[in-house]
């Protein structure tokens, strides 16, 4: 039994000449009123369905646009902050070293400056070591010279010792001969001659030894000079290198500390960006939600159009003189079909873009 037009269940056109029973007893008017009332109820229901659906779509689009706008503004600020931090990292790494290259403006320049400085220090050490080696060789040669001269002096001293002994003997002989001078004057003269020769040799040797000693003293002075030069250069280089190394280490530590701070700030900024990207991902899902909502609206609009066409058909039937009851029955059938296929539940429940629930079974 039709619930739209219960007093007349027949469908399809009726013969024009045949009067419908409902028309005869006035129930046709009642049926028409009832059908109109029910149609009005369905229209109200459809409007009631469409209204929140469209409001929901409006809310979702509005919220998505607002969230996306806010997220993009925050992202823009975060990206600018990121650029600023990156520049600071560069500046922190482009430290300058007192007394060294001061024109480093990029991390690469800074590290090149450090590298050049360290290489310069190492070159200084190498050159110093070569000087030390050269001086050492000279020192060894001088020591060898001293040793040779000492050996010569020892030989000479041995000769002097022999001369001294023989002079002593001659002296004794001279004394003996002197005692007999009167009788052996000729012998004394021979001895005296030998003593004279020995005295000459002794004098020459003393002179030579004096020269050797002078040479030895000069060699020792030069050796002393070399040793002092080596010691002085070594110490000065060591002190200078230590100072340069200390400056480098301090500069590197300061730079490293600042870079650490900036990296922490960069990480915090990256978290802000990540959070904003999350907002963007969540907000962009409005397309799916609004799409489903609008699909439901479109389906309901199709229903409304079908209803309008059904009423238009009634109008045309009545204008053509079709029996009222049959025309109403046809209308009723169409409307029942529409109502039966209507989807009245809302597929999208969420009215906002807040993240939905999660259930693990």
């Amino acid at each position, binding site marked *: 039994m039709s619930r739209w037009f219960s007093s007349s269940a027949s469908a399809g056109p009726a013969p024009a000449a045949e009067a419908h029973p409902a028309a005869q007893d006035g129930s046709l008017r009642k049926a028409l009123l009832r059908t109109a009332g029910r149609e009005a109820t369905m229209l109200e229901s459809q409007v009631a369905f469409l209204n929140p659906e469209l409001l929901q779509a409006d809310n979702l689009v509005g919220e998505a646009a607002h969230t996306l706008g806010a997220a993009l503004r925050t992202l823009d600020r975060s990206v600018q902050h990121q650029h600023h931090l990156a520049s600071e990292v560069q500046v922190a790494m482009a430290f300058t070293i007192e007394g060294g290259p001061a024109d480093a403006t990029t991390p690469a320049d800074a590290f090149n400056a450090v590298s050049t400085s360290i290489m310069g220090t190492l070159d200084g050490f190498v050159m110093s070591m070569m000087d030390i080696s050269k001086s050492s060789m000279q020192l060894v040669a001088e020591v060898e010279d001293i040793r040779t001269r000492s050996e010569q002096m020892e030989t000479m001293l041995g000769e002097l010792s022999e001369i001294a002994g023989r002079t002593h003997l001659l002296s004794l002989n001279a004394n003996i001969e002197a005692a007999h001078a009167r009788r052996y004057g000729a012998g004394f003269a021979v001895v005296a001659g030998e003593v004279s020769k020995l005295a000459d040799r002794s004098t020459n040797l003393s002179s030579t030894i004096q020269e050797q000693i002078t040479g030895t003293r000069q060699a020792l002075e030069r050796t002393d000079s070399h040793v002092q030069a080596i010691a002085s250069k070594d110490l000065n280089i060591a002190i200078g290198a230590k100072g340069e190394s200390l400056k480098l280490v301090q500069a590197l530590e300061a730079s490293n500390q600042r870079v650490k701070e900036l990296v922490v700030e960069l990480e915090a900024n990256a978290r802000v960006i990540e959070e904003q990207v999350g907002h963007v*991902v969540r907000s962009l899902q409005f397309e799916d*939600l609004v799409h489903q909502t609008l699909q439901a609206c479109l389906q309901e609009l199709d229903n409304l159009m079908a209803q309008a066409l059904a009423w238009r058909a009634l109008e045309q039937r009545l204008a053509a003189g079709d029996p009222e009851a049959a025309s109403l029955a046809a209308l009723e059938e169409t409307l029942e079909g529409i109502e039966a296929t209507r989807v009245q539940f809302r597929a999208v429940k*969420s009215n906002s873009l807040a993240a939905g629930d*999660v259930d693990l079974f």
Partner: protein
Amino acid sequence: MSPCILTVDDSSTMRQMITFTLKSANFEVVEAGDGVEALEVAPGKKLALIITDVNMPRMDGITLVQRLRALPEFRFTPILVLTTESDASMKMKGKEAGATGWIVKPFSPEKLLEVVNKVI
């Protein structure tokens, strides 16, 4: 080798958002536009997880879950339903079909990754 996840949704925007989120966590992602395409794509792939929508043309998500569970290859593969549907009755249908979990759209990337890492 990164775990591979199949995501099934008729909305290209949703697929993009899901893929973006999963790839940011180093997952490999395979996409399908509905249940029918998912059943064509899935076999032979070592899928660590399947994420599917419910309301899709040709084959809905609940039917897809049932069909996948009927395949020995996917009998124990975690399947998450990601949908606008939040009715308890619909959730029950998903559970009975063999779904592992139910996530109501819209999802937050952080929460999705948390659930994915929990069920994989």
